[in-house]
């Protein structure tokens, strides 16, 4: 049985506090006046050709995006208009940074919930020894998802441009989507997703615990049925969630496989975290019944889903690149031209690195390789979420500074605290699961 040490509590609480302080600092620092921004721009234009390029590019982009919204006010000077946009982008950054980190940790938890449901629905024999770890990770889902929704609502037009009535009033494309993209429906849908996921999580955990001391397999069977039903609910709501919470930051753009793409990211990060926490608990001398064949299987999933992610990423990219339709292709033009380094680094970290490291069968059983690949995968998928949100909110005013780092600290602290709190509540072995014997003796 795992006990949550005071040191661990203090560590994660201090992460949260440190992160919050950092975030509030970046938040106050982002409140510049228009004049200050003009000075900033003037300074930057003296810097050299590189930042000049960036400006021109961002300016074109703004013109493209906001053509409709600036019909009448030609009285506004060209410079003023630009400064105002830059001001907005600087304002948006703390919100967007917070949102990226919040979504990333929520996504891990949701991915694990789906993976857990798959284990039950497929009655997998190898994984029941890991069930308590999975259940603990999903403990974060309810608070995590509510926080994401809250940030989305409070962040409002700082993250979702379609929440700004001014923009919508001048944008016919968003007007056409208003029946879906309006704030009330957004909140309602968000509550339905979170409600559904949390209900499944609540009952599944309840049955799983009840099964521990049960004489028959009634709870296991219930969990099987519940999980199968949940997976149907999940794949619809997950897809819609990805449109709502991520894709709508670029309200003009759409991709039909976006839901799958986010799902791949979700599951691979989730499985990685399962593996990392399992290895951590093993170094504490717990979970002796987890052998290297279990780790091998987790690493296979990490490998497989990394390739699956790359496949979907490329499928989305290639079709849009090939067809070259202006309203679709802007998405990648923005990212490749303004974010060339993070864009391609992200692809290497998420695909090429895990592909090469985890290809060898023997390496999949060695904890150090799993940890190495796992950390890189997590960094890569954080960058993936970053690449989805940032280009739409802060355009070229991006970076990895105090705002981003503190946001990660806040949610890392919260995630660790809640997950390990939940781990410390129950026995680490789901001993009543009818397949626990098979799982303990699992070997490849």
């Amino acid at each position, binding site marked *: 049985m795992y006990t949550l040490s005071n040191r661990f509590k203090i560590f994660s609480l201090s992460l949260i506090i440190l992160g919050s302080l950092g975030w509030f600092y970046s938040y106050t620092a982002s409140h510049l006046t228009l004049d200050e921004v003009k000075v900033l721009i003037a300074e930057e234009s003296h810097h050299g050709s590189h930042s000049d390029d960036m400006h021109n590019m961002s300016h074109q982009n703004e013109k493209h995006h906001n053509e409709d919204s600036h019909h009448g006010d030609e009285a506004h000077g060209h410079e003023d208009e630009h400064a105002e946009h830059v001001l907005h982008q600087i304002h948006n950054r703390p919100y967007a940074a917070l949102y990226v980190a919040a979504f990333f940790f929520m996504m891990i938890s949701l991915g694990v919930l789906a993976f857990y449901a798959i284990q039950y629905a497929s009655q997998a024999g190898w994984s029941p020894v890991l069930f308590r770890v999975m259940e603990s990770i999903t403990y974060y889902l309810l608070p995590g998802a509510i926080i994401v929704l809250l940030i989305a609502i409070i962040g409002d037009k700082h993250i979702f441009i379609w929440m700004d009535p001014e923009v919508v009033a001048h944008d016919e494309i968003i007007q056409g989507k208003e029946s879906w993209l309006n704030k009330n429906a957004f909140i309602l849908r968000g509550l339905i997703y979170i409600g559904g996921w949390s209900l499944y999580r609540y009952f599944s955990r309840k049955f799983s615990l009840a099964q521990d001391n049960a004489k028959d397999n009634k709870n296991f069977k219930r969990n099987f049925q519940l999980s199968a039903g949940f997976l149907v609910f999940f794949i619809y709501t997950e897809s819609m969630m990805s449109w709502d919470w991520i894709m709508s930051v670029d309200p003009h753009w759409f991709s039909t496989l976006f839901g799958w793409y986010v799902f791949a990211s979700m599951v691979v990060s989730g499985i990685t975290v399962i593996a990392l926490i399992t290895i951590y608990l093993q170094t504490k001398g717990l979970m002796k019944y987890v052998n290297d064949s279990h780790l091998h299987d987790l690493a296979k999933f990490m490998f497989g889903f990394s390739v699956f992610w790359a496949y979907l990423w*490329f499928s989305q*990219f*290639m079709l849009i690149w*090939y067809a*070259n339709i202006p309203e679709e292709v802007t998405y990648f033009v923005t990212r490749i031209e303004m974010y060339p380094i993070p864009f391609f680094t992200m692809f290497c970290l998420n695909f090429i690195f895990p592909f090469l490291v985890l*290809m060898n069968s023997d390496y999949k059983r060695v904890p150090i390789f799993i940890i190495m690949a796992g950390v890189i995968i997590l960094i890569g998928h954080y960058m993936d979420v970053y690449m989805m949100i940032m280009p739409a909110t802060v355009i070229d005013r991006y970076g990895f500074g105090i705002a981003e780092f503190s946001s990660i600290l806040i949610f890392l602290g919260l995630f660790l605290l809640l997950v390990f709190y939940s781990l410390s509540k129950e026995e680490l072995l789901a001993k009543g699961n009818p397949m626990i014997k098979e799982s303990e003796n699992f070997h490849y």
Partner: protein
Amino acid sequence: MGSIKIFHALYNDDDILLSAVKKIKEKHYDIDEVYTPFPVHGLDKVMGLEPTRIAIAAFIYGCIGITVATLMMNYIMIVDWPQNIGGKPSFSYIENMPAFVPIMFEMTVFHAAHLMVITFYLRSRMWPLKKAENPDPRTTDDHFLIEISTDKPVAGLRKLLKDSGAVEINEVKPKEY
């Protein structure tokens, strides 16, 4: 070398076969070969065979495949008859690379798979029209055969094989097949 004798022991169950191989190994007899109608899980480990190196070969073949695909598409689509791909007439391989990725992928898989099969056949010394090495046709149906050559006294080996569950024990002349 006249003193070396070859024995064929037949079994009719894969579990009995596995434990028999273990027992024979414990007594330090040399097992030349085991013939089975289907792959027996764990047999390679009890026989003490080296792990396969086909994975390394597969990786190399994959690399060959992706190279062939790259050179081929570069010749076909860029050099020999320059194509306007996706309305972007850049005539550069690297700029049109996304269009070639599916082909590069398929050729990688194609080369890895086919060359692996061919390697496996050659490594197992199998080629078309070759006479079967299989000593007993029943091993293609429902029997398992262990081939042992020994220069130790025969009675001990016979007893060992009998005890290990063999249904039939034959002494054969060398190079009979």
